[in-house]
């Protein structure tokens, strides 16, 4: 393709990306360096149906003048990043000095909201991503070797979890694992413990969130691998069979190497998606047990008083996290590209 044709071809999507992705990110980064003005507080008398009470309120005129002077707020540099609700530089420092051992230090770190969220987010990412790849591959191989008559319905059912809206899918599971739901009752029966409740236990809640994550994303890996399996070279496969390779050896030495680039692609997508885990935490009302970075952003924006700078700082940290996670894969891809 000529350069000019290529340029015209990608122009609409480039403009859209610039407008809807790049500029908003710049705005978020800028926002994260600013905090609200010092509020001018005055004592006022508030009256209502239940009587009058002395209370404080914001002096609107004085605040309006401040806003006029500096519309973005007060420049704070990295203050929001360093405060206790984000990187908590001071709290981590004092925990490091005071802690007797690693265990104690870890416990103190997990008491800080950002590290608590990061802890779950990373665990979720590194447990769910490999499992999605393995399950997706196994399902793809199984469906591919099924009789062609039932292949269509099999594909349809395998894709169902991905078609269901995440919020709805997790709500379904939420009610099934309820102490009075079908899975919850079954677990109580199997464990022989009538008081067992998934929703009341942190480890079980984590497991449930990850099971949901795998259930929801495995069809994505499956459909990519299934497409890849259609391109496996039949001659190579036949040659390996003539050489005496059994079914496992065919998969190990022919199919897996062939599908490796797809694995990189799935890993990239899943690392990004899983690092942004959010919907199941809301649907499972799991925030007493597990919080994620995306949930923290949502929580900052969902309260009666909106904490925009705090949400912006967490967003920037999430972007940095995604970049760090993807860097090994990206570096590898870049090298492969250079070699060619």
């Amino acid at each position: 393709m000529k350069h000019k044709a290529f340029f015209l071809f990608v122009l609409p999507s480039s403009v859209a990306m610039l407008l809807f992705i790049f500029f908003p990110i710049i705005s978020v980064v800028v926002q994260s360096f600013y905090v609200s003005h010092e509020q001018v507080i005055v004592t006022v008398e508030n009256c209502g149906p239940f009587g009058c009470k002395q209370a404080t309120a914001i002096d609107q005129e004085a605040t309006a003048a401040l806003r006029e002077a500096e519309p973005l707020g007060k420049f704070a540099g990295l203050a929001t990043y360093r405060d206790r609700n984000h990187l908590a530089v001071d709290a981590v420092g004092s925990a490091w000095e005071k802690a007797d051992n690693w265990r104690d230090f870890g416990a103190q770190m997990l008491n800080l909201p950002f590290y608590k969220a990061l802890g779950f987010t990373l665990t979720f990412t590194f447990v769910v991503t490999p499992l999605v790849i393995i399950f997706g591959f196994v399902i793809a191989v199984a469906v591919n070797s099924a009789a062609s008559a039932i292949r269509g319905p099999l594909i349809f059912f395998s894709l169902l979890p991905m078609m269901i809206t995440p919020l709805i899918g997790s709500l379904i599971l939420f009610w099934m694992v309820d102490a009075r739901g079908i899975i919850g009752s079954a677990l109580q029966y199997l464990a022989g413990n009538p008081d067992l409740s998934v929703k009341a236990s942190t480890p079980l809640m984590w497991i449930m969130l990850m099971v949901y994550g795998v259930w929801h994303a495995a069809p994505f890996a499956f459909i990519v691998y299934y497409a890849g399996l259609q391109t496996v070279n039949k001659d190579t496969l036949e040659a390996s069979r003539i050489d005496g390779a059994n079914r496992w050896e065919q998969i190990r030495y022919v199919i897996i190497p062939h599908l490796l680039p797809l694995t990189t692609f799935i890993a990239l997508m899943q690392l990004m998606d899983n690092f942004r885990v959010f919907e199941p935490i809301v649907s499972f009302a799991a925030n007493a047990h597990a919080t994620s970075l995306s949930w923290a952003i949502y929580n900052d924006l969902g309260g009666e008083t909106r904490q925009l700078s705090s949400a912006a700082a967490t967003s920037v940290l999430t972007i940095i996290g995604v970049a760090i996670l993807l860097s090994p894969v990206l570096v590898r891809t870049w090298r492969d590209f250079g070699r060619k």
Partner: protein
Amino acid sequence: MFLKTIITAATVALSTSAAFAACTIDSGRLNIIGNEFPAIQTVAKNATSCEGIEAEANLTADHQKINLAGMQGNPAEYTSAILANSSIVALINEDVLRPLDDLVAKHGQDIPKHQLITVDGKVMAVAFMANAQHLVYRGDILEKIGVEPPKTYEELLAAAKMIREQGIIENPVGGAYQAGWNLAQEFVNMYLGHGGEFYKPGTAEVAINNEKGVATLNMMKALSEYMNPDFLTHDSNATSAEWEAGNVALMNMWGSRTGRLMDAEGSTPEVYNNTKVSAPMTVGGGNHPASTLWWDGWTVAKNISDKDAEATFLAMKHGTSSAILNDETMGQAVWMIDGYKPAPVNAGVFSAIDMQTTPYPMLPYQGLLHTVLGDNIADFMQGKESAEQTLSDIEAAYTAAAREKGYLK
């Protein structure tokens, strides 16, 4: 001639009643944003029925996430927000509400004085209903164990123990203890019941890490031991469902939800016929109820033309006038409207008003504290850390958030 007189008389009668029920405004725009429950639906339906204006309403449980953004533009998308005493603060903080003094002087002389919410002498909202959390109990079960409806949380714990020990219900206590807003609300109730103050007087500095804070958390934990183990995932809806399923015998619940618990829908006669309400309870020997009083009211946006503001005022006034009360709407809330006749279902909220329950604090930084409480109390409730640790976490998280919002230096 005779027939004509009758027809004229009938027409006159009809038009007077129509003038009383319907409302006509010359021109203007009305767009309501508000929460979604029966009482607000009634208000919105009546306000938008006014003729001569463009009228719309967006009622959703997520109203707090969109009302500010929808009123910051000029002209504002929403001309009126229906709010409560907690949520009005966020909009006053951002200066998007219009003081109503001139409109009250011009059109609202007949609005009873006690409905007007004033901040610093300026009318900012018109309240139309009251709400509070109070005791809801199962009359038959308390009769079975032979105790009176509890007046204190200590009595409630004793009753819960008896119900469990006699094998009637394993987890007899209910409560909206979902981590987040609901759990924070229960802390606010219980802390006020202990006579606590949230801030150092006259400042935005939080001061809850004290004996009253510890006692509050310990009482919440003691209660949770008689709750369904999943209590940290139960909001008011889930708690109501537990009640209707007959799994709970005692709970602290919103007055606005008791109507649904006592109607014949979604439950068995054994449950709904025995569902009774009573006053909010006290705690720790205090004489102040461990609950908060709430009002719901309407406001007018600042960034709209005077004509639209006037139309909105008139329509909302109509939407909260005596004309909206009928057999169906009467029991939907504790209306502050003239002509309202209380039903037994509303006794709890009336007791809360009589007992001079503290209104939920209308402070610019209370919303931040509420969010932080909701994020941190769950760790204590699960036994992961001590009460003192939880309270100091709350203070530290609040201080960081309040600094970012400019309330603390």
